[in-house]
């Protein structure tokens, strides 16, 4: 869920305008259209459903997760956005046809280990890296 916008007094600085200062531009991309921000979602890979339990010993499946959501200016702190992503999102606002929005993608991945039989009935244990999304962010 998106946080409600705070109403503040305008400042005479070179800072970027607050969302509510320019209605119609920032409001539309900051979540008022109901789009959710970039975050992690459930994705479960089931070795059982793949019919692989005749050769996979453990686990029966694992949670891989995936990232999806909007990376629109202003990028919230929970979006784990890089400085570059913040800049890119701003430029996208000014030139949407030239520069795309930043991408919602995994920012941290972890491994998962699988124990299985090979075709010679040897038992293999292997750690597979970068298989599970730990965190998503705008990059």
């Amino acid at each position: 869920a998106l946080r409600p916008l705070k109403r503040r007094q305008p400042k005479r600085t070179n800072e970027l305008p607050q969302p509510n200062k320019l209605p119609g531009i920032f409001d539309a991309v900051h979540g008022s259209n109901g789009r959710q921000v970039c975050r992690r979602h459930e994705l479960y890979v089931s070795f059982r459903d793949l019919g692989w339990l005749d050769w996979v010993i453990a686990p029966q499946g694992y949670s891989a997760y995936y990232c999806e959501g909007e990376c629109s200016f202003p990028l919230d702190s929970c979006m784990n956005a890089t400085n570059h992503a913040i800049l890119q999102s701003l430029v996208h606002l000014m030139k949407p046809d030239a520069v795309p929005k930043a991408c919602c993608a995994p920012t941290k991945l972890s491994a998962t280990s699988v124990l299985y039989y090979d075709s010679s009935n040897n038992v293999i244990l292997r750690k597979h890296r970068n298989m599970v999304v730990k965190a998503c962010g705008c990059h």
Partner: protein
Amino acid sequence: GGGPGPRPPPGCPQRRLGARERRDMQREILAVLGLPGRPRPRAPPAASRLPASAPLFMLDLYRAMASDDDDDDAGPPERRLGRADLVMSFVNMVERDHALGRQEPHWKEFLFDLTQIPAGEAVTAAEFRIYKEPSTQLVNRTLHVSTFQVVQEHSNRESDLFFLDLQTLQAGDEGWLVLDVTAAGDRWLLSRHKDLGLRLYVETEDGEARGWAPGSSGPPRSRRPIHGHFFRASPSPGRAPR
């Protein structure tokens, strides 16, 4: 056999895939797991449904490895695994006894087919595990167990052997004996052209040869000797473009 991690959320929507889509998806996932195709292990005979020694030992290692999965940058890894992220276990194909005309065998030899080890892997350790049954007599007698690699067999003389490990235990001890055969693994990977042979000698302190596993029926399936190889896996080979 379920592993760590949350279960799928209830009511998770599923999309039906066509047969070809399903095959393609499985092939892609197998490629991510570094497998050229789906393994087809031989089903164990109905009479041997007891847990085999290899899976039980490997299941312990799996739990240790899975506990480190959450953070690849964690501190020192599980001690038993060291820096390994690939472990392969092999159950011996052939077991030979050599007797010198006495009741007890002089030595025991085990052959392992290691041809499934992928090329290019860096060995971090290799071990040979054999179950020691307790002796009912002279339980405090000291035994010396020495392990050799069979480098070259000869028809007219004794085989060429390469010393690997020596361990000392008591005759009354029971449990898994773990012997370091890392040097044998390194040497085998240089040639890769034949089975790995490991020979075990058991002697008392006065040099008398002793038998290892009494009984002619052999150990139960859960206590069969295991040869385990630990590797620091090389980066996955480049996947063919789809």
